[in-house]
């Protein structure tokens, strides 16, 4: 599989989060929108978000790295993914 560029990666995550978590069609999130601390994404969903990232980028992220802080924005998520995505 060809390696995705940063924008493609961010947009993939953004589309997933929009589809799964934004109930109000008028709401929009950006790469810097707080996700966990804002309440858009609940803390229970960090595990499914982790599964999504691992499936999508074919990586393994240690559970200890999947913290509310690391998952709080799309930019931070991609920074974490970049550590394992080669």
């Amino acid at each position, binding site marked *: 599989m060809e390696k995705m560029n940063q924008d493609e990666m961010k947009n993939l995550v953004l589309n997933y989060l929009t589809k*799964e978590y934004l*109930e*109000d*069609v*008028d*709401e929009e999130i950006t790469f810097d929108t*707080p996700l*966990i*601390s*804002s*309440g*858009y*994404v*609940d*803390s*229970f*969903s960090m*595990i*499914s978000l982790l*599964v*999504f990232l*691992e*499936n999508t980028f074919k990586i393994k992220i240690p559970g200890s790295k999947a913290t*509310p*802080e690391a998952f*709080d924005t799309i930019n931070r998520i991609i920074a974490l993914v970049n550590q394992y995505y080669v």
Partner: protein
Amino acid sequence: MRLLPDIVSYEERLKSFDWSLAVTELGYVKEDIINIGWYCSDRICLKGNADKIALYYESFGGTEKSFTFNDVRLTSNTIGNFLINLGLKNEDRICLFMDRIPELYFSFLGILKIGAIVQPLFSAFGDESLYIRLENAQTRAIITQRKHLPKVRKISHKLPFLEYVIVVDPVKGKSLEKNEVAFILHETPSVEDFKIFPTRAESPSVLHYTSGTTGQPKGVEHVHYSLISQYLTAKWVLDLHDNDIYWCTADPGWVTGTSYGIIGPWSLGITQCVLDAGFSAQAWYKFIEKYKVSVWYTAPTAIRSLMKAGKEVVESFDLSSLRHLSSVGEPLNSEAVVWSGKVFGKQFHDTFWQTETGSIMISNYIGMKIKPGSMGKPFPGIVGVVLDPKTFEPVPEPGKVGLIAFKPGWPAMMRGYWNNHEKYREKFVNGWYLTGDKASIDNEGYFWFIGRDDDVINTAGHLVSPFEVESALLEHPAVAESAVVAKPDEINMEVVKAFVTLKPGIIPDKELELDIMNFIRRKLSPMAMPQEIEYMDKLPKTRSGKIMRRVLRAKEWGEEIGDVSTLEDD
């Protein structure tokens, strides 16, 4: 200046306790009108506190609002008046399905003021969870926000009793559907004089839903007289004083968020604050610092998350306003109590109670020695014991594990399960109310929590029914069979784990795992979503075909499997 605790002395209170103390303080006269909506707003104004701040509200986005007790009185009047004009009346069930926005708190009181029954539901519930509860209660109206409308719209056509969907923040220019009505509080003229419905002590007030091992969720019926317990426990356990700034982190979709996030503090005329946002250690400490929170009532899961965030984060904020800390929802581990003593200079006081009990039953009190890890002792006036699980007689020996039970009769005790008298009756044996939890009592009378007596999963203080999750899993097109158990978790105490077998030809993989997880989250709720899914070729069953959950649970907890003589052969 050091404040004298409201309870003064737990031991002394035990000697001469009577609930009439709260009745007198509240000025309630037996057989007379008692309405929680009035007690939490009008009465506080009449006592001269109309201009006192009742609510500081802050959203994640930074929106800040504050409301006085007079504002609470007027807004709840206005909402009550709107509901009456729609034709809603006493004993109608009106659901609140909103995030923690001010309208939620005012609507709670407005509904009570018209004598109707408030049915608060957690706004993260999926459409199936919402449907089951609205259908069961035959709810006549739901008050919600536009962000939750898609879920309501998905099910409203299947709910013949649901006449009104009231939207508090409709988008201008966007039309609402047939049974939807706009209600914008700040654009509606305030109602100064409102005729409050003359509810009595046994008039129904709040209908909270809770989950059991089997069957659908049950609606727990409370009455206006619950105020007596909620007022006094808020005063003595949470130790709320006139000048306190109080923060209850619970969502009013759950009983803590209403008994102690609305009724208890506001009946005492206490200023409280609400942060409508997700969890973040930084944001929480900043909130405490900013509003100078003095009394904080939160949950062990949050405390453990704060512990994980580290001491350094605490040290970057001024939290010196904190005076009293309490916890509820799950057992508070001793490490968390010791940690809070070190970093906040105050230990968390654990409290134990349930949706059914309506108010705090067992607690650690200011002035009483805290034994870290213990639930504490029964509130004065509450007779609490542990019962032998075979004889249902109180266990006399200290340290022996039994079923936590209470002698019925305290004011906030549930009056029934909605439309389910049989289940209600099952909660009582030998004149005791059975909580479904197990504990032991030590030689000084302290209760020590052991665990549930059934298969209900307590995740971050929320009870999840394995039956409900298993049923929902079977609706997934790939799932043939399912079994759901609790799995130990460092932060949430327990999380949901699902074991599934798949339909012929379906290949188990990680994509399917994610699909099943999201399916359950959307349908039920985030906390019901399995945090782990294990694919199996077959599930352990009895010879009669019943799935043996306890075998799977024992495996997760590293416990002995026990008697497997009824397990079917391979």
